[in-house]
């Protein structure tokens, strides 16, 4: 059996593959074989290196070497000079983009300039979330200890303010400012609340943080308690997150056992206790006032602001509500300093944002990028491009409160301001990539279909208005819409936004408005031409069998649930579109690609 002493890793991500990385791997194998080195050096293709703009990428282990822009005919040089001669091929070495120098020996292999920086997720996938010792080994609770011994509460708030951290739950409110207002409020009892409701469909950033690094959130809540003068913390978490709940419980009890939560923490005289509160999964209960009412045992309905929760919140006491990811950033801001944090990001948005990258990209995943990263970098470099080489059509951010952006928005650096200006919003971090097979009217309808039943019903614009919006969209997707409907759609959307009581109704028309703005032609096609270019609206499409391709195998007619397909064996079949329900079964069953959507 071979005992390899070197490995050649060739990137097999989609960008490098289109740069001929398979050929590169083959050339390595044949060149090594020719030199009788096949038993010493192993060649293997890997997943994406995340250095797509510099591909194809080749890495040599254990020599800490990364070669970029490698071409198939560079292989011989690498083998002869590096593998055989022990001298690295200078002109192919990775260039550090900051210093501009070629990096000969990358002692810290994970310190390449990468598109992603993990700050909020720093411990996720690194430590054992069920063992507080592992967290402490990674500087856990040092930030709290530092605050309790070296900082006054005012100084803690100064650091958080100076860092530029803003709320990751959706609205992007400056965190330091929120803490300062909770600190100013005078009361015999204050509360620190963590919003772990995470109701956006498709979002799982907060769950991942709680499951991977629960202690960082506990530590941050205690820091917040010290800063604002609260000794009680509450985590509002949806009951559908059993593993996150279990790990939080373990973390709380371990932290209490070690005196890192509880009374007189580290002999400082500061007390802080954390309890869990469970939500039943209503989207509106993620809204801060509704969340508080739900915790109080009342109906999960929002109330008018002001008063802000920082003045009158849980049990009418000053309550600081922050999102999970917001808290997860706090300990490291304290240990590394406000300046460090504010050096990352853009002029108006600091730090990083975690996104749940989903939809039609090759590498769906949980990602964390510095503010200012472009959508193009996220989709094509981190996400590895659109699946099946299809064409990009839209990216949805901000979930049911956000909007759909298009090709022409791909190069805007994402931050709170730019996304809002473009007609979407940062939101809590859901990011869904769509290709040409998505119908934008149907997408808008999908989000309204979500919001209509999630409206708590307290205010009329949201309760009734959203329903009317949904009905109009439904009418359009069925081919019965008029140009007047499009006008109504816009007007009503604006009215709901202006008049709804809480953020739910104030943002629920966004998916409609953004698609009207960015995909107007598609709406018009549905209305005037009764056509859905994506082929997604069943009432607007016809199925057709191409007689030149159909061999009459009968697979379609045998599987059609409504017997809409007729034909003789070995002769082209026909579909009766008056019976066809457009379920798509025939398309999946046809081995000859003979069935088309028109």
């Amino acid at each position: 059996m071979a005992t390899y002493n070197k490995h050649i890793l060739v990137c097999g991500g989609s960008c490098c593959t289109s740069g001929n990385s398979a050929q590169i791997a083959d050339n390595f194998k044949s060149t090594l074989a020719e030199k009788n080195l096949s038993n010493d050096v192993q060649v293997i293709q890997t997943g994406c290196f995340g250095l797509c703009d510099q591909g194809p990428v080749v890495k040599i282990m254990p020599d800490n070497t990364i070669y970029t822009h490698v071409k198939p005919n560079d292989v011989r040089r690498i083998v002869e000079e590096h593998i055989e001669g022990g001298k690295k091929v200078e002109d192919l070495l990775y260039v550090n983009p900051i210093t501009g120098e070629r990096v000969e020996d990358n002692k810290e292999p994970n310190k390449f300039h990468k598109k992603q920086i993990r700050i909020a997720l720093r411990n996720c996938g690194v430590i054992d979330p069920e063992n507080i010792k592992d967290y402490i080994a990674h500087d856990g609770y040092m930030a709290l200890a530092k605050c309790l011994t070296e900082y006054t509460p005012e100084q803690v708030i100064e650091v958080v303010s100076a860092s530029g951290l803003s709320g990751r739950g959706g609205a992007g409110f400056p965190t330091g400012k929120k803490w300062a207002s909770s600190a100013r409020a005078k009361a015999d009892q204050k509360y620190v609340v963590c919003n772990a409701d995470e109701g956006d469909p498709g979002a799982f950033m907060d769950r991942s943080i709680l499951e991977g690094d629960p202690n960082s959130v506990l530590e941050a809540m205690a820091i917040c308690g010290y800063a604002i003068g609260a000794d009680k913390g509450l985590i509002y978490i949806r009951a559908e997150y059993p593993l996150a709940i279990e790990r939080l419980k373990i973390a709380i009890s371990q932290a209490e056992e070690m005196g890192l939560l509880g009374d007189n923490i580290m002999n400082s005289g500061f007390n802080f206790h954390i309890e869990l509160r469970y939500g039943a999964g209503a989207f509106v209960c993620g809204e801060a006032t509704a969340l508080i009412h739900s915790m109080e045992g009342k109906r999960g309905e929002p109330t008018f602001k002001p008063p802000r929760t920082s003045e009158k919140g849980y049990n009418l006491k000053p309550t600081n509500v922050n999102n999970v990811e917001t808290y997860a950033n706090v300990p490291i801001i304290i240990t590394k300093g406000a300046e460090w944090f504010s050096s990352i990001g853009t002029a108006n948005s600091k730090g990083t944002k975690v996104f749940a990258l989903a939809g039609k990209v090759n590498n769906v995943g949980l990602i964390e990028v510095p503010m200012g990263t472009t959508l193009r970098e996220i989709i094509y470099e981190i996400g590895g491009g659109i699946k099946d080489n299809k064409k990009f059509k839209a990216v949805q951010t901000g979930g049911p409160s956000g909007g759909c952006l298009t090709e022409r928005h791909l190069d805007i650096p994402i931050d709170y301001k730019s996304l809002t200006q473009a007609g979407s919003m940062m939101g809590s971090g859901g990011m869904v990539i769509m290709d040409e097979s998505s119908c934008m009217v149907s997408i808008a309808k999908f989000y309204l279909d979500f919001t209509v039943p999630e409206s708590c019903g307290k205010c009329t614009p949201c309760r009734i208005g959203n329903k009317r919006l949904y009905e109009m969209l439904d009418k359009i997707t069925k081919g019965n819409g008029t140009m007047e409907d499009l006008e109504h759609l816009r007007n009503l959307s604006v009215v709901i936004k202006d008049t709804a009581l809480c953020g739910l109704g104030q943002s629920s028309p966004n998916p409609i408005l953004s698609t009207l703005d960015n995909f107007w032609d598609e709406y018009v096609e549905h209305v005037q031409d009764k056509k859905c270019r994506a082929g997604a609206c069943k009432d607007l499409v016809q199925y057709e069998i191409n007689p030149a391709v159909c061999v009459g195998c009968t697979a379609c007619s045998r599987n059609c649930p409504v017997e809409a397909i007729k034909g003789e064996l070995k002769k082209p079949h026909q579909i009766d579109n008056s019976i066809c329900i457009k379920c798509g079964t025939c398309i999946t069953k046809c081995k000859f690609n003979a069935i088309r959507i028109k």
Partner: protein
Amino acid sequence: MRKVQSLADLQSLRDEFRAEFCPADVKKVQVKIAMATCGIAAGAKQVMNHMVEKSKELGLDIDFTQAGCMGYCYAEPTLEVSVPGRESVVFGYVDETRADEILTKYIQNNELVEGIIPVNYETTD
């Protein structure tokens, strides 16, 4: 567990735990499995149980630990293998067959197997 008394006390505990959890020179093979809900749903727990059994059979002394999400949803279950003296490697799409290969080929013989995911992010420490 005893209660932490002060910042200095926490610092000394940190150094003690560091030696235990992230020592400068690792002497034992470590396998860290991403076990967030999604990893578990994709079969991470079975894979870990299988690997624990199999490594006993093979007489391999390995530290298995669970961790949270590593971010590679498209390639779950994922795990990271650190062998003393080698750079650690993340493997994705790990089913029982690949888990066996990781043990017998990679850990025992330093032969890499399919499914390598190059770490594509920086982490602040």
